[in-house]
Each structure stands twice: as C-alpha cells, then as structure tokens.
C-alpha cells in the first residue's frame, strides 16, 4: 500500500526556561548545563495514512492537535521520532490569519504562490480560478487591510484550493465564514478527496470530522488515545466529553455557572428501540432532555436532518410551532410519523435556542447517523406526497 503520510513515534518537546540567565547558560555551554524544563506537547504518535485517506483530529484544546499539524506541515521540527509526507504538501493553518496587509489580494496571491514554491507566472495563470472561487470580485485589487475577516478567509482557502497538493492539512477552517462559503469549502475538500488527495483535518466540529473523514485520531494530552473509523472514534470521544460534562454538571459550582444545555438525546423507532436504520416511511421519535440551571426566558429546541454534503433536508423547531420550554429541566419528545426521508445517510442535529430561535446555546450532532432504507425507486432526499393523473389528448 502506498503511504502518503507516515509518522513513527513522533514527539514534540518545548523547552521552558524560568529565566533568561538559565537560557543563556544552557546556550553558552551548548546544552551541557541544562536550564530548561521539558514540556512534551506530543509524544509517541504513530500514523500511516494511505493515499486518499482523510484523517480527522479530535481532542480538547491544548491536547496537541495543532502541534501535530504544524509538525506535519514542516514548520516545526520534531523532537523525537520521524515523519514523512508525500510532496507537495499544502496547509491551511489559521486560515486568513493575515496576509501582507498593504498589498492587494492579487499581489498576495502571487506572494503566497512564491512561498509555496510556485512561480509568479503560474500563479498569475491561476488567478482567474482563485478570483472566481473567492468571490471577491473587485476587492481583489484592494489592499488586504480593507478586507473583512471572512474575505481574508475566502482568499486563503481559494489559494489553497488552487494548488493540487498530495497532502492537504487543514486547521479549523470550517469554523468561520458564511454558510454558503462553508459549503463551498466542504465541496472543494470533497473534490480533493475524490482526486485522491490525502487529508488531515483538525476540527472541534465532530460533525465536520464525521462528514469529511473516514478515519479519526483522538489526541489526549499529547498522546494518541484512539485511532480508527471516524464515526467510532468521534462517538467514543463525544460520549466521554458528555460524561465529563455531566460530571461537571453535578457539581453545584459548575451548575451555577451553567448555561442551558442538552443533557441527552435518543433517536427511537416505532417500537421505542434505538433507531439506527429505518425504512423510508416508518415512524421516528426523538427525545431530547434539556436542563437550564438558571431558568430565565423560555428556550426553544430545533431538530434537523442533514445530508452528508451538509444540505439541510428538513428542520423543525418548537418556536416555529408556538411551543416554549420552561423550567429547570425537561424532555421534549418529537414524533415524526411516516418519515418522508428517502434512502441515504443522515445526520441528526439538535439545537438548543433562545425563545426566538436566534441565539444558539448548543448545537449537537447525534452520535449515530441515521440510515434510511427505501424499497421504492424514487429519487431525491424526501418523498413528496403525490398523485398522478394522465389526460390523454383526444386527437
């Protein structure tokens, strides 16, 4: 099997010095006198990704996800072990964190290309493609300092999208930008996957990881805690996060500081069993437990079904149906008789919202995906109630 990315007991250690004098002493003795405290941000990571694989990195803040990405991107040297990637590698680290602000978008395209090792001429040839993808229009001739953060992001992604990397490293890029552009980015990433680009994606959105990746690595305190199927690893991770959150919630102090949140969700079939796979047209029932440690204004709940490419197939909300959630805790039961979803895999999203449905307190993807099987040959996402009538032209 041809590997696109390989690491062997990869580790990164940062040196912490308590004073400049200790550092000077260590430097001037070429390390013979040790003046630093070692801090291992990452240790013992073994990865082997075949060409075309997509790996999602999940873990808490500071677990070492970004350190791993920076090592893979080659902008940080390993302290232990070794790594190998199939060139060319492109990375989107802290997308749009800044260009040369005084220069126009077009000039920045060429500069970014030079850093990538792509000649100015070739980069100018790609400019049209980048301009179209970024949808910046006339802003491309304006200095980057006049851009909004979303525009900078678009330009950054468009530049990365215009190169054809063997390995693409992405750090939290889907967290920003408007929905339409996010979808465009996801589409482009999916297209990369089809072309056989190997992908490493770091995201707090387990939903994105599940959508885009086939593999996931759970990094915890600098160690690889789990590596395997994206759905399994993200489910393990999210259930652990949930447990630790619930443990937090039982402590009064945490409760006081607590925001309204979703405590548990259940996706059930007509018989009240967990529904992982249903027939199109079957009944579905979703139960959502919520808690509001400091009951204030009423809350609302939304439930939506998303296709793999993030298209929202259908969604409903208590606020849209004139219902409000009040009190410290409770369970909302949503019954969906004769589900009209057609065959496919759907993610079920639950949103906990304020009473107007504007502010999102929590957005939660159900850990398991809903698979719908269908006996009919009808196409599309949902089955429309329909009737045919044929009128023969009498000639």
């Amino acid at each position, binding site marked *: 099997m041809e590997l696109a990315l390989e690491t062997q007991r990869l580790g990164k250690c940062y040196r912490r010095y308590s004073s400049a004098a200790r550092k000077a002493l260590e430097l001037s003795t070429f390390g013979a006198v040790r003046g630093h405290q070692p801090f291992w941000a990452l240790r013992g990571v073994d990865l082997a990704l075949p060409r075309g694989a997509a790996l999602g990195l999940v873990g808490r803040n500071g677990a070492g996800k970004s350190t791993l990405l920076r090592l893979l991107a080659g902008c940080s040297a390993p302290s232990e072990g070794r790594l190998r990637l199939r060139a*060319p590698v492109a990375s989107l680290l802290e997308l749009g964190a800044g260009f040369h602000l005084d220069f126009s978008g077009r000039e920045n395209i060429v500069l970014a290309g030079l850093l990538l090792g792509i000649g100015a001429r070739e980069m100018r040839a790609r400019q049209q493609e980048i301009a179209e993808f970024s949808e910046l229009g006339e802003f491309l001739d304006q200095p980057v300092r006049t851009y909004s953060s979303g525009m900078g992001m678009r330009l950054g992604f468009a530049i990365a999208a215009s190169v054809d990397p063997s390995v693409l490293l992405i750090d939290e890029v889907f967290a920003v930008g408007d929905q339409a552009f996010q979808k465009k980015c996801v589409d482009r990433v999916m297209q990369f996957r089809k072309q056989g680009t190997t992908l490493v994606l770091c995201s707090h959105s387990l939903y994105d990881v599940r959508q885009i990746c086939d593999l996931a690595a759970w990094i915890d305190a600098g160690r690889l805690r789990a590596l395997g199927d994206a759905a399994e690893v993200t489910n393990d991770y999210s259930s652990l996060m949930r447990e630790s959150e619930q443990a937090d919630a039982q402590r009064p102090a945490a409760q006081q500081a607590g925001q309204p949140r979703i405590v548990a969700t259940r996706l059930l079939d007509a018989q009240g069993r967990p529904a992982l796979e249903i027939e199109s047209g079957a009944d579905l029932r979703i139960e959502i437990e919520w808690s509001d440690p400091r009951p204030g204004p009423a809350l609302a709940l939304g439930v939506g079904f998303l296709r793999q490419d993030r298209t929202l197939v259908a969604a409903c909300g208590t606020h849209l149906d004139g219902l409000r959630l009040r009190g410290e805790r409770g369970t909302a039961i949503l019954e969906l008789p004769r589900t009209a979803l057609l065959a496919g895999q759907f993610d079920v999203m639950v949103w906990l919202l304020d009473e107007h449905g504007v502010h999102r307190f929590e957005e939660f993807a159900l850990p398991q995906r809903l698979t719908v099987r269908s006996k009919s040959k009808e196409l599309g996402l949902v089955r429309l109630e329909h009737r045919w009538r044929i009128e023969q032209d009498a000639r």
Partner: protein
Amino acid sequence: MSSLQSPVSATLPPPGSGPEGWIEADAPLLPRALRRSLGLVPNLLAHRALWLAGARREIGARLAGTLLGRLWPLVQPLMLFAVYYTVFARVFGMDFKRPTGQGGAAMGVYLFVGVAVWTAFAEGLSRGTLAFTERGELIKRVAFPAEVLPLQTILAQQTLMLIGLGGFVLLTFTTSLWPAPGARLLLLPVLFVLQALFTLGLALATATLHALLRDTLHVVAMLTTLWMFATPIFWIPSAEVLPGVAPFLPWLEWNPMHAFLGCWRQVLMGETPAEAYTATLGTSLARASAWTALALAAGSFLFALGERRLPDEI
C-alpha cells in the same frame, strides 16, 4: 510594519529532510548543520523568486505613501554629501595632503561614498538581526527557507544605497565635479553581491542568536557603533594625513569593512587621492572576498545549528 503572512505553505522538499524523505528528530546535529550550511547558497539561488519579490516589496513598502517616492533614495545621500562636505571639509578643514585637482570635492566625495556604503551595511545588519523575530508568525506557520528573510532586507537596503551611488555616478558623467569612473564600474555588481553575502553571513548569525536571546540586538547595536569608528568613514587611513593613526593602521586593516570601503571607493573614485587607500583594488577585493567567505560559512553554520529551534523560540 505589517507581517507578511500567508495561510498557505508547502514543503518542497521538506526542509531538513534526510534520505527517503524522512524528517528525523534525532538526525546527527553536526553533519546535518554542515550539509545545510554548505547548501545554503544553492538553496537561496533555487528560491531566488522568493527573495527577489521580498526585496522589491520591502523597497516598495518603505517608499509607499511618500510624495517624492523613488526620489527619496537620491535626496538623502545628496543631503548627506552637503552636510559632510560642509562640516568635515569646510568647518573642520579636513582634507587630503596633496592637491587632488578636483576643486576640493575630494573630501566630500570620500565621505559620501563611505557613509553611503557603511549605512547600507549597518542598517542591513541591524534590520537583518530582527528578520526572524519580526516575522515570527510567518516562520511558525509556513514552511519556507527562513534565510531569505535577512537576505531580502539586506538587498533592499543595498538597493537604496545603489540608487544614491548611481546619482553620484550620474553627476560624474554630467558635471565636472569628479572624473567619471570608467570601466571599473563593471565591478559594481561584484561588490554588490560580495557585500550582500558578507552582511548576510553576519545577519544569519545575529538573527539566530537574537531569536534565542533578545539581548543580541543591543550587543549588535553597540558593536556596530564601535565598528563604525574603527572603519575609515570619516577619517583617512594614512599616516601622512593622520599621524596619530599610524601605529594602529596594521591592526585596523584587519577590519573587513576597511577592505570593502577600499573597493567601493576605488571603483567609484579611481586611485586618487592615493592616501585614501592602504591597498590596491585587487588586494582589497581579495580581502573582502575572503571575509565574505568566512562570514558566510560561520553565519550559515550557526544558523543551521539553531534553525530547528526558530519556530519554537519566536
């Protein structure tokens, strides 16, 4: 100054990668640093588009938003010439012993060339020292050869100097201020490259040290000031003109910038006034080249030793 930063990066091939493309943590340090420092200049040549664009951008950024724009690099040297000529030649009455036949402009031209060349060197070194730390965000996020950063700063500085010197050469062709330099002008590109590489060698060392320990810039600033007085910018390295300097002259000739100034002056001013030079153009050029090779070898080796720690330290 805003930082140049791009969210995109590529490894081509990964810097510091060994056989079969492995980036090793425990590759032997000294052989790796030796290999890296020997490959530094070829690597720079391979990435020339990057630092050429970088130098252009730095020049552009320094002139952007000014009324006179491209004229500034000319205005400043002209003013310097006027000031030095008035202060040193007229007020202090400093001049060469023998009449040079150039209407008393000799001292002014001598000072002007010295100051222009020294300023480019000293500014290039001090800005080059900051090249890594000022672009920390870029080095942290993008895999690219960091040695282009001091180089582009130095090139920008020297280009501005060249514009000033070009103005002087133009004057020699159009006025009777000074005889035109002639065929020796062909040596200008050689001098330009030599001095850029010499400054780069020093700046690679100081920039690496500065990333590790922020005292470096202060030390560099202090030593540069001392160095300036040890260099014949305002004084004439001649026992005849300055008898006081005679006992120190053999030592002062070990100063690399002494050799560089000798080269620039002999290319731009010719052999007169003879007291200005302690060596022939050939000897000065040979000395400058030797110093360049030494500075570049030492600087790139130190840089190669510390390179891997840069992203963690800035």
